[in-house]
């Protein structure tokens, strides 16, 4: 399994500097204040506020239908927002200047089924202005080097989502917004991807990963728990276990939900 990371190229146009060891001194990458989103006449995101720093992997967790994807769409600027402000790297979400620096992976793989793996990644590389040499690099990172000439439509679900993920790594983005990138993947690959997210963060990116599988929470530096459109907790894995007095993430989440309901 090859998921080795290449060092970030020097001279790459960057908004943020290399993170220091002290978490408090790292710059804020994402600032969300009072975010509200209405879809189909319902409030699906209700007054959500959080701040994410560079150099951290944050898990956005909670049951499906809880508003995780809508928050992520708001971050990348494709969601019509009812109220609140979303700022990335000091600019309003969706700002033209942000587009090369923010990578987004949608929940269902958004790649072309009727193109090969290499053709897909090469097209997105051109759109992002990434050098052609990055194509092979990112395909190797998601362990699809043996499938570069396969049509994406003929790949398994897990392989297709890895193609989608590969395109997000092309431009060495400062902010990665990944909507359930590990769903349907085998445990080995999931572990490797989470290691990669960690290394991307160490190199100075702000990584936000959503999941409805609570055991993935332990792999994150920070946790945001969402349910029914509201942010239930903004904590750390150890903080969540300590505050609920549980010894597993699943149990901790259930305790939180039941405590909230009563």
């Amino acid at each position, binding site marked *: 399994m090859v998921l080795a990371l290449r060092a970030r190229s020097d001279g790459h146009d960057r908004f943020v500097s290399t993170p220091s060891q002290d978490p408090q001194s790292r710059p804020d990458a994402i600032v969300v204040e009072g975010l509200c989103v209405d879809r189909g006449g319902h409030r699906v995101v209700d007054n959500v506020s959080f701040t994410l720093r560079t150099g951290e992997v944050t898990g956005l967790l909670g049951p499906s239908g809880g508003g995780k994807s809508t928050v992520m769409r708001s971050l990348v600027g494709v969601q019509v927002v009812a109220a609140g402000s979303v700022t990335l790297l000091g600019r309003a979400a969706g700002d033209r200047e942000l587009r090369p620096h923010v990578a987004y992976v949608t929940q269902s793989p958004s*790649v072309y*089924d009727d193109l*090969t793996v290499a053709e897909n990644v090469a097209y997105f590389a051109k*759109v*992002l202005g990434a050098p052609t040499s990055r194509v092979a690099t990112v395909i190797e990172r998601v362990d699809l080097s043996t499938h570069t000439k396969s049509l994406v439509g003929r790949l398994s679900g897990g392989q297709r989502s890895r193609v989608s993920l590969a395109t997000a790594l092309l431009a060495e983005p400062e902010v990665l917004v990944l909507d359930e990138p590990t769903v349907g993947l085998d445990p080995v690959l999931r572990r490797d991807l989470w290691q990669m997210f960690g290394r991307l963060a160490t190199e100075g990116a702000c990584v936000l990963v959503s999941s409805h599988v609570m055991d993935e929470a332990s792999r994150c530096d920070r946790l945001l728990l969402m349910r029914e459109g509201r942010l239930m907790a903004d904590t750390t894995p150890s903080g969540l276990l300590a505050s609920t007095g549980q010894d597993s993430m699943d149990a901790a989440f259930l305790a939180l939900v039941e405590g909230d309901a009563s």
Partner: protein
Amino acid sequence: MSTTRTLATTNRVLRQLRHDPRTLGLLLVVPVVLMAILAWILSDQQFDRWGAPLLGIFPLIVMFLVTSVATLRERSSGTLERLLTMPLAKSDFVLGYAVAFGALAIVQGLVVSGVCFGLLGLDVVGSPWLVVLVAVADGLLGTALGLFVSAFAATEFQAVQFMPALLLPQLLLCGLIVPRDQMPTVAQWISNVIPLSYAIDATQRVTTEASVTVEFWGDLLVVAGFAVVLLALGAATLRRRTP
């Protein structure tokens, strides 16, 4: 707007088609078969009257369908949303498609015209190349219309329904079935503002006039103008933010 990104999109769309040889085959074979049937059932004189205008209508219909379904697929698969979070101008996307399908319209126009003039014995008074030119302009118009209406279609079913809704009325009112000056007054007014009337006028000039007239270029310019305006509207109606 960026030429690199526009052409990358064109290249990508053409590669997608290359992986779909059946669609490509249908695009080229179906119009040829239809023209052959037409030549078979009509007398030579009738074929000369109907052949050239219909030569222009096939690319219009086919390109309309292919483009509207292709862009709709791009919406439903999430690739459009993802592209719109990237540094891709909306005009890069629309022009990329227009160039790809425009190139396809040229190939289709050349193949179908080649068969009609070379094998089926179609005769026009003017230059056959002008008929090809009108066919290509019609193909571009179909692409532009398809890109534009896909913004208003939420499903493939709806997109396909736009064909009879937008193209068939034009077919009835463009002067192909009844000469435009013999229609009821209101029908003539409508006929004056739909692009297909000008496409049919242009081909009818080639079938009856030996020299290229200013009126011919005027008609062609109107068809091209409609295509450009619809492409611009197609780009303008793309929304980065959706509810």
